């Protein structure tokens, strides 16, 4: 039985954000924007979706008098990502058989 791919993660930009955040402790919004080459507006929307799913934690604060957004993957997000990768592996194993 195939596991269904998590629709929250099975989107290019959201998966890119999660893949970045799984590798670091925390990252600023500007860093994620730079690495994903996404527009600020689109990225904000996708991060909001991840936040609503409980996959990321978003902290908004001021840094040098400028607003600064920091994102961090949550335990729920780590588990979801791991499950997503496991499901992907299942699909790939079947495709290669």
């Amino acid at each position, binding site marked *: 039985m195939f596991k269904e791919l998590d629709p929250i993660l099975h989107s*290019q930009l959201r998966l890119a954000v999660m*893949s970045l955040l799984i590798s670091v402790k925390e990252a*600023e919004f500007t860093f994620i924007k730079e690495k994903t080459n996404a527009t600020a507006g689109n990225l904000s929307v996708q991060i909001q979706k991840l936040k609503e799913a409980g996959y990321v934690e978003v902290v908004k604060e001021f840094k040098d008098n400028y607003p600064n957004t920091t994102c961090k993957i949550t335990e729920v997000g780590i588990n979801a990502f791991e499950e997503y990768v496991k499901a992907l592996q299942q699909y790939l194993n079947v495709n290669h058989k």
Partner: protein
Amino acid sequence: MSDEKQLSSEESLQLITSMINKAKNSFYDSGISLLLWGSAVSIAAFVTYLQVQYQFSIGFDIWWLVLAAIIPQVIISVREAKIRKVISYDHTAMNAVWITYAITIFGLVAYQNMIPSATDAILKNEGWVLIKHYTSGTKPDEQIRPFTLSVTSIYILIYAFPTLITGIIKRFTAMIIGAVIAYGLFIASFYTSFKYDMVLAGITALVCWFIPGIILRTKYLKLKQKERNV
């Protein structure tokens, strides 16, 4: 990058790999802190050697230079924190190691400077002092302030080392508190004799390891119980 594009399994995996690699390649160290401390400590050590070897004095203790290096280090750390856009897991671990190392070094400096007067006080309390007596009679007697090595104090300082690092990395408050208490006991041990140093070492082991151990064990047993009930 679009959010709507439907990915195949291969594309998803490629994307994950490429983003993880991008994140990995984003960490760099300017190396400026290593240059600062490497130069400050080596200059102080070489100048001390030259003063002893060639019998001259530069008029002040060169090791103050090492202490003064804290100021540029603080400036460097603040600047680097301002421009840092991403924090890696090993950044936190490395910070914990270097912070604990700095505390240990300054603990040793304090130890080195406090022990002679502390030993003197203990001896006076016991009612005796060490005197250097010149048998030739050309010079008056001088009181000696001995540097009596109290190894237990060093042990206490070392006990705190892994405790604080683990506490910071694992965010385990009990171990951070244990390490802070250990530093306090380390300072207290300057002024106590060997017998009481042992009591302090025992307390250190309790606060650094035994109490955190009880907390972890309780959590572990509760978790096991929960798993059995599921």
